[in-house]
């Protein structure tokens, strides 16, 4: 008996220790990024283009580029992914294609991001002749975001209670009316979350964009011109041998982290608040 109690105490101690270590990692990383980031941040960092190969000036090219690429990518993948998620959720029991599509989305979410980079480079940049451009980068990123939008949409649509749909059907609504006026509205908070999560995920990725959107020191002027973005700015600037560039990398990392984490957090808050207006 005493041995059992001893074991109990020991395991509790170890668990508490492990949890503290995990949270400690988080704290150390966040504090480090924030400390370096805040001291590097200034208004000119946000509003100026880089000069002298990144050693002077700001990060405007990367900030605007990131917003362009991620928004465009999310637009592409939402316009395909939301209908796909709806279809999978509604027809999974009946259609083999729906099941296969759901499975493919799961597989896709496990594909390493560099593979998307390879895919985008060969298909969009070379075969479709888009060159290294904003458009090619956004399309590549859209492929990476697709499974997030599909899966989250699918999950929330499945949670819509069948009695709500049945009530609408019994009032004489057609299936299309039920889908567009009941199911989609009920699932709206979840779908909005899906879109925001996909945007945040896309905004943080560097590997798929290395060869597809390229990098430039200017704000992109058209869909076919190369565009910088924040993750790649962090990478290129921190790998340079100049301290001035490192400071800009710290600022970029800080902006990026704040942006991604606050969108993640905001989407969760939004979901909670919106869900109040949904029939459970």
């Amino acid at each position, binding site marked *: 008996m005493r041995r059992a109690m001893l074991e109990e105490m020991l395991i509790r101690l170890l*668990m508490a220790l492990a949890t503290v270590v995990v949270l400690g990692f*988080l704290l150390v990383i966040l504090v480090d990024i924030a400390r370096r980031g805040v001291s590097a941040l200034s208004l000119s960092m946000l509003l100026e283009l880089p000069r002298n190969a990144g050693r002077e000036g700001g990060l405007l090219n990367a900030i605007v580029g990131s917003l362009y690429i991620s928004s465009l990518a999310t637009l592409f993948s939402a316009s395909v992914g939301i209908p796909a998620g709806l279809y999978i959720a509604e027809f999974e029991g009946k259609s083999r*294609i729906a099941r296969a599509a759901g499975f493919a989305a799961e597989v896709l979410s496990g594909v390493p991001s560099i593979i998307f980079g390879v895919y985008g480079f060969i298909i969009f940049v*070379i075969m479709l002749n888009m060159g290294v451009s904003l458009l090619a980068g956004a399309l590549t990123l859209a492929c990476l975001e697709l499974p997030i939008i599909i899966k989250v949409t699918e999950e929330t649509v499945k949670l819509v209670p069948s009695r709500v749909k049945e009530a609408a059907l019994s009032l004489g609504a057609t299936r299309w009316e039920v889908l567009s006026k009941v199911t989609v509205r009920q699932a709206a908070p979840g779908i909005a979350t899906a879109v925001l999560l996909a945007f945040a995920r896309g905004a943080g990725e560097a590997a798929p964009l290395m060869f597809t959107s390229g990098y430039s020191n200017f704000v992109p002027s058209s869909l076919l011109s190369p565009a910088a973005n924040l993750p790649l700015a962090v990478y290129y600037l921190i*790998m340079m041998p100049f301290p001035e560039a490192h400071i800009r990398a710290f600022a970029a*990392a800080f902006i990026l982290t704040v942006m991604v984490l606050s969108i*993640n957090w905001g989407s969760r808050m939004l979901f909670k608040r919106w869900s109040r207006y949904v029939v459970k």
Partner: protein
Amino acid sequence: MASISSIFVVSTIAALLLYNFMKFCEQGFLPSILSDVWLPSKGEYGLLPFIAGTLWITAVAMTISLPLGFLTAIFMAEYIPRRLYSPIKSLIELLAGIPSVVYGMWGLIVLVPLVRDHLAPLIGSSLGKILPLFRVNVNTGFSILAAGIVLSIMVLPIMISVSEEVMRAVPMEYREAALALGATRWQTIKTVVLRLASPGIFAGIILSFCRAFGETMAVLMIAGNVVTIPSSLFDPAYPLTALIANHLPEMISIPSYAYALLTAGFVLFIITFSFNVIARLVIRRLKRVG
């Protein structure tokens, strides 16, 4: 129509990589996958150093994250006071949201100097004298150890959330039965919860393995990118993902180089693909039973 999109993307990725892998084999390069000579200018495409690099780093990452993730998951599922649960849960989710390039930067400016100035001299002069695993051959800080530590932090959220979820899915009555027989809480967990949840925990481990295996930016920045077959924790390594990231644009000019790089991609894809499928099937089955 739209729903075919996911099928379309997966199958074109698979087809593209498979096609280039076949070309690679056709040109008689297949045996060279397991050679350690990498001289693209002479047409030698040995992928072994890169495969070894990826495996070493992944192994180190898993060794560190396994005990941490496992214990934290039990804590989160079984012991945690209700009041603490949602703040700690959201903190762990925060960890999952940090972009990988930010992890890479942190590793580069904090861990690499730490390994170079403190860990390597300390461990190398003690354990390194006895075990070759800890020997310091070159000390730049860019090492398997530094990359492994960063990856272990990156995979912790996946491991914790999957294991926690499957442990929570074990019905309460089972626990109550064990507790009623006089078992302590840990005995209950050990004999009842873990036994029932073990396939799911295994799936969580596989998913985090996949994440570590396919991670690019962080390892690209801190593993050192030296073409060798590593033999110690303090050696640099050159993972498959970093190989692709560093050389992809060069492939346009030389077809055989392209086949080699895409074969590296094929290896990455096929391993993460099959492991993912296994893990998803396990999780799906557990959910149906539970």
